[in-house]
């Protein structure tokens, strides 16, 4: 896949540096909002998304589960990771935690 076909998504810049809770009803910048606005359209259109996690103040477990975990349970983690690339240069643990949540290894 060529570099030009990869869409860039910087969570802090394009969504919020302060991710919130699980559902839209919980408050602003929820995992559900992130999934429905950014992830599901990318998945539906078949495009690859490079998601940069640097710059966020933190990634609460509930947010990550609702954003990524729901999709992973829907399409499977392997299929999901064909479409998403996680980048976290300043704090590699962030990307690792999201991956573990996608693979269902974190509780």
């Amino acid at each position, binding site marked *: 896949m060529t570099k030009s076909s990869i869409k860039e998504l910087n969570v802090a810049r394009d969504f919020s540096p302060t991710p919130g809770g*699980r559902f839209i009803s*919980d*408050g*602003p910048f929820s995992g559900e909002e992130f999934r429905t606005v950014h992830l599901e359209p990318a998945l539906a259109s078949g495009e690859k998304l490079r998601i940069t996690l640097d710059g966020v103040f*933190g990634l609460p*477990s509930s947010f990550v589960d609702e954003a990524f975990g729901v999709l992973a349970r829907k399409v499977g983690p392997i299929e999901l990771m064909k479409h998403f690339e996680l980048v976290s240069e300043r704090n590699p643990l962030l990307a690792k935690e999201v991956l573990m949540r996608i693979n269902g290894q974190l509780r």
Partner: protein
Amino acid sequence: MKRIFWEATQRKRRKRRIRDVERRRKKSPSRKRRAASPSAGAQTSHPPDQLAKQQRFPQPLMGQSEKKLIAPENFNICENPEESIAFFHQIDKALAGGRRVFIDMGLVTTISMETILYLLSYIEYIGDRHGGERIRGNAPETEPAQSLFAESGFLHYVRTNQFVTSNSSKLLKIRRDLDTTGALAREVLQFGSEHGVSLDQLGSVYEVVVEMMQNTRHHAFPELNMLHWYLMARYNESEKSVEVAFLDNGVGISQTLRKRVHENVMQFVGLPKRQHALIVSALNGEFRTRTGQDNRGLGLPSIKRCFDSGNLQDFFIVSDKAHLHLSKNVCRDMPKGLRGTLYKWKLRS
């Protein structure tokens, strides 16, 4: 030292009074209009000038049906839970008897942040349930307790004769909401950063605070009648640490957990519930969420992971009768319970 008095605001009664005034006004428009109630809403009262405030509270008036209760000298829910929580049960008992209560904190020498939060949440809970001014009191008269109480932001939520306008850089004043707001978690981070807390610790704090807000929203109030969460932080100069306290006035963690068969049997035959054991089980990630969904119940384990990583020191969880001091691995049930759930921890700078 100035004596500070405060009085819980009347939310329900004020609305009724305004309705009555409007009704009378409509019936006889020629009557002289009386001034509307002095303050709007339960959140704040800002009488026009200091003199008017002082005249309203010249002395604490001990009405015939008012009971004066003296707060413990060490008014600290985490460090002195039995005495501090028992004091709130005394207030419950007096209120149940139909009396008003005057909380005398004049002899308090030490008051902690979480106790101030709980006092505010308790007053608002009583106001929501019973509607009306049932509680008033004074502030501690010795330092540093009086300064902490006055500058905490507590007085913003009640009627008082003393307004504190100074913004101490060592305090993140009381915040109160129901939504899960990352922006507020960021405020806590920024406060920590300003006082020298490392970035590693702060990353954990963001997740912990957001998960606590989530737990309040999803689990603390199963009924529709929801209250709020409360948060406060302060910089402790002598210990070189930032202390953070978070509280909700809900039903308590153990009430929101799914119990196993033998635990239900124990409850049914009247054996003590061992609430602290239930909470430890949930913290350890055992499947306890009452939602029954595999992907839920993540909040408490994530809080425990942050603690295990060494980023949170001196971590307390007090919920209903359970008192957990995770840093010292001391977990027990108390004779009397708190209404809700309280977390408190320190961050070394």
